[in-house]
């Protein structure tokens, strides 16, 4: 410690120390000179001899200073200062490098921020590590929805847990603020139904007001209270301080706001933040589409482990409890299938998010693309630094001659790179702020319909709330440092190893040194070519895949169809009230001029939901269960197939005779007919638990997504009234183009019932666009970055060929003097440049094949090793490189032999 303070004191007296050192050495010189002054030696000679004896004065001072401590730091400070001066002197170079780095670092920071927000960030709750989540596991499938009843019974006997809470999230529309009709919020509001102890269990305290009490959540007798998120408070109430006690009306039930949650808490579902929380017991009123008793409502269960109990111990106790629970259950109503599943505990510190699975591929693509771009940027900057170090050779030699050791020069150059990297990093963080916001926005986009559908299993959009915190800055810093070392080390090593003579020697004489440097540059350019080939091919494949998806035959008529997504159950109509409501709606809509036909299904058209039940769970009379693909059942109105443009392949459509009391009937799609019946005639077979007779086969349609290949079977609404309580997709067939009729349709819907949530009114093309929004984003990013990499590679080729031409000006001059034609010189230089590019391509091809295999599962209708795309990208690469090489090659061919030789 005392040494530190001494150093500190010396630091403050640094100037005085300097002066004293100078004086001390001066005294030494005088003393030495005086002693030497003798016979035949003038004062001047003696002085000079003394000086010679002392040696390198600057070095002595330097070495002495080193003993004071702090020199390392001081020298670094000098180096940083010097680096900044050099950078200002080379503004264009600096700007170029900083921009490239900013893009590379910014891209990586943005991607990391997104990945962090989705994947790694812990919930802002008390002790997130002690939070666990329950799910059923059948071996193949996981299921987080557990009936509320089971939750209550399980929670009662949950010894390993301090407490357990239930939650379920739904989207509702037309929430009325303060009971004023004119203050209706037509947009979606995410409402989380939670058990009374939810907030207490998580340890989340209300920002204002209070959280729920368990008494407010009695099944059958709930209190109509709500806690709102800070975001919703801001958005709907303008942060008004008197928000407590005001009301929200959802589906004719009015809830009193009792609290506001803190801003950092948006529920336990990452990617689907809650706006409003209400007691779970109000479920029958909020989720009218589920026609069951309150106890049977689905929930997700969160549990807090008792202190000192590990997840494994808790799992063991849970197994015992579940065993006991099952025995009681089986005795009561003989549920057999439940025995095949396990109740599994999982760590939930990062919350719940099915989107993690949906976004696995896109995010992997993002990470790979961003990483590749950074590598390209680093190699590019290294190339530029190498080229510049050639120009700075004299400077380095002078420094070496003045006594700078190679290590010192190496350090100075590394510090210059680090300063460059730091500037790039800072600009990159700014880029990342923008990039993160843009990515967040893009990822939140997606099909509208599926978000409000509680039976849906797919999540094509994710609403993240990325925060730029210290960890992300730390990662950006680390990336920056690694970059600085990565691109700085090779050029710095080359520069610091330079021999004195080579640098101070005659200008323009290319020694072995510059040839070596040329080789290093060429190697870097080859790497750049290889990397940008990987990116270009990937981008090309994604582009082709997207094109295939967009132009894919979806089965629905694109030119004459308008699709309305709505949730009539949210108007309070259930069961028998729905068919007449549909009839009224149909009649009103049919009166709009240009409307040819109207029909209805509960299957969201291109809504991104492609989940289903495994085919083995679907009973077909007279057949053993057949596993293989997924199946899904949708209900339709008669005439649906005609309306949307799907033709029947066999049998008949539903009609008014298929009433409730008539024999149950079903229509299957071609995929299903092929899968179950092969060459057999499918009509007349019986399907499902209710032994519905198959009366028709309809053409395949791409239902949820353009990749849909499920076995879909249709039943008539008339025999399945309850299915009308799910979200509706109204199909409106138009005579002309459907785009122009959107407003009119919306007006009619409002007229029929202003409380009807209109989730979406749109065309098939638009739906397809929405469902492909993430793929388009990935493709765009890959294309932009691929183009950027290509540009950098072209710059690299240009640089290395120019360098070669400069080094060989003499040689070219001699060749021309000996009779070489301009054409010969041009093709010689060009050939050598292209040889480099071809070498890069040869290295890049295997890397490309490896990289594209990683994205093969995202590709649609195009092989990961598609020869056309690879050839195209290769040709593009060659063309761009040839263009980049032509300029310096042309300059080489213009060399005047006289001028070139006179240089010598």
């Amino acid at each position, binding site marked *: 410690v005392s*040494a530190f303070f*001494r150093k500190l004191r010396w630091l403050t007296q640094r100037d005085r120390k300097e002066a*004293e*050192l100078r*004086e*001390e*050495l001066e*005294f*030494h010189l*005088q*003393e*030495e000179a005086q*002693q*030497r002054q003798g016979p035949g030696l003038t004062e001047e000679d003696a002085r000079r*001899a003394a000086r010679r*004896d*002392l*040696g*390198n004065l600057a*070095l*002595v001072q330097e*070495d*002495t200073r*080193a*003993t*004071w*401590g702090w020199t390392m730091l001081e020298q670094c400070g000098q180096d940083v200062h010097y680096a900044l001066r050099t950078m200002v002197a080379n503004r264009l170079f600096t700007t170029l490098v900083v921009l490239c780095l900013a893009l590379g670092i910014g891209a990586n920071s943005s991607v990391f921020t997104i990945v962090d927000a989705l994947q790694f960030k812990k919930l802002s709750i008390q002790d997130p590590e002690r939070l666990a989540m329950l799910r059923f596991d059948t071996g193949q499938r996981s299921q987080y929805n557990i009936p509320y009843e089971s939750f209550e019974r399980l929670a009662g006997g949950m010894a390993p847990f301090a407490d357990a809470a239930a939650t379920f999230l739904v989207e509702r529309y037309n929430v009325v603020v303060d009971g004023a009709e004119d203050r209706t919020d037509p947009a979606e509001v995410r409402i989380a139904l939670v058990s009374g102890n939810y907030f207490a269990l998580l340890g989340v305290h209300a920002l204002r007001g209070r959280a729920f009490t368990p008494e407010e959540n009695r099944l059958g007798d709930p209190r109509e209270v709500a806690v709102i998120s800070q975001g919703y408070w801001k958005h709907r109430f303008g942060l008004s301080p008197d928000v407590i006690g005001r009301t929200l009306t959802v589906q004719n039930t009015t809830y009193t706001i009792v609290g506001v949650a803190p801003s950092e808490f948006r529920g336990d579902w990452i990617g689907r933040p809650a706006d409003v929380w209400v007691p779970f017991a109000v479920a029958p009123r909020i989720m009218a589409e589920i026609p069951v008793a309150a106890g049977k409502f689905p929930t997700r269960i969160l549990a807090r482990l008792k202190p000192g109990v590990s997840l494994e111990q808790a799992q063991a106790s849970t197994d015992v409890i579940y065993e006991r629970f099952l025995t009681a259950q089986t005795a009561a109503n003989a549920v057999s299938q439940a025995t095949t599943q396990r109740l599994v505990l999982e760590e939930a510190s990062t919350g719940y998010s099915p989107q993690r699975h949906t976004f696995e591929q896109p995010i992997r693509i993002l990470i790979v693309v961003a990483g590749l771009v950074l590598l390209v940027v680093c190699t590019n900057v290294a190339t530029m630094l190498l080229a510049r170090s050639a120009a700075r050779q004299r400077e380095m030699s002078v420094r070496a001659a003045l006594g700078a050791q190679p290590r010192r020069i190496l350090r100075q150059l590394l510090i210059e790179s680090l300063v460059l990297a730091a500037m790039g990093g800072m600009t990159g963080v700014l880029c990342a702020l923008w990039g993160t916001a843009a990515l967040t926005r893009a990822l939140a986009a997606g099909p509208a319909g599926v978000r409000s559908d509680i039976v849906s299993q797919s999540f094509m959009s994710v609403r993240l709330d990325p925060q730029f915190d210290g960890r992300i800055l730390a990662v950006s810093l680390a990336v920056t440092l690694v970059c600085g070392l990565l691109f700085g080390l090779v050029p710095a090593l080359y520069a610091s190893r330079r021999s004195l003579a080579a640098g101070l020697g005659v200008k323009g004489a290319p020694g072995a040194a510059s040839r070596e440097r040329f080789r290093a540059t060429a190697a870097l350019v080859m790497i750049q070519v290889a990397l940008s080939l990987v990116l270009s091919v990937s981008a090309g494949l994604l582009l082709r895949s997207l094109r295939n998806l967009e132009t894919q035959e979806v089965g629905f008529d694109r030119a004459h169809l308008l699709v309305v997504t709505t949730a009539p159950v949210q108007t309070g109509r259930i069961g028998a009230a729905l068919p007449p409501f549909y009839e009224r709606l149909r009649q009103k809509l049919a009166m709009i001029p240009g409307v040819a036909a109207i029909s209805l299904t509960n299957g969201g058209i291109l809504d991104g939901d492609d989940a289903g039940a495994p085919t083995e769970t679907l009973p077909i009379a007279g057949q053993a269960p057949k596993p293989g693909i997924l199946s899904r059942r949708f209900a339709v109105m008669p005439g649906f197939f005609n309306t949307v443009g799907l033709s029947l392949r066999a049998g008949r459509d539903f009609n008014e005779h298929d009433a409730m009391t008539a024999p149950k009937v079903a229509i299957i799609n071609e995929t299903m007919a092929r899968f179950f019946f092969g060459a057999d005639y499918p009509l007349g077979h019986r399907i499902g638990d209710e032994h519905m007779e198959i009366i028709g086969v309809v053409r395949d349609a791409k239902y949820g997504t353009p990749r849909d290949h499920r076995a879909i079977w249709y039943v008539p609404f008339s025999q399945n009234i309850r299915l009308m309580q799910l979200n509706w997709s109204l199909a409106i067939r138009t005579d002309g183009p459907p785009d122009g009729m959107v407003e009119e349709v919306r007006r009619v819907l409002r007229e029929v019932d202003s409380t009807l949530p209109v989730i979406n009114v749109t065309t098939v093309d638009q739906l397809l666009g929405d469902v492909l929004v993430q793929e388009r984003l990935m493709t765009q990013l890959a294309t932009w970055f691929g183009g950027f990499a290509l540009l950098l590679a072209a710059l690299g080729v240009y640089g290395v060929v120019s360098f070669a031409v400069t080094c060989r000006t003499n040689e070219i001059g001699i060749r021309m003097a000996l009779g070489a034609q301009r054409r010969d010189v041009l093709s010689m230089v060009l050939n050598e440049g292209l040889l480099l590019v071809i070498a890069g391509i040869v290295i890049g091809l295997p890397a490309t094949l490896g990289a594209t295999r990683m994205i093969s599962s995202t590709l649609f209708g195009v092989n990961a090793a598609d020869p056309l795309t690879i050839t195209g990208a290769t040709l593009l690469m060659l063309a761009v490189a040839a263009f980049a090489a032509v300029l310096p090659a042309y300059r080489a061919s213009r060399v005047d032999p006289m001028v070139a030789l006179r240089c010598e």
Partner: protein
Amino acid sequence: MSPKTPSRVELLQGTLDLLILRTLLPGPMHGHAIAKHIQRTSENLLQVETGSLYPCAHRLEAKGWIAASWERSDKGKRAKYYRLTALGRKQLFAEQSKWEAFARAMGLILDPVGQENS
């Protein structure tokens, strides 16, 4: 020109510390005098390079083994005089006995007979 030194001995790593400390034992001295004293006392076998003398002196000062003050020299000029501190004295004796042990050990190995005879 200065007379040629017959043959010089390279200083062993770390021995300069000991030499400076020993030189300062009789009393304070400035840098130049230290160098000359070492050279003279060693019969010109040891030549202290200025390039290592001053860094070494400053290092010893930083360790607190010697202290410095500005005084007038014999000729009346301002010079930086170094003197041994109590800590330096202790260090000197420790180093010295260590060195003697080392020298004896070297001698035993290099010339075992001569050592036995003496």
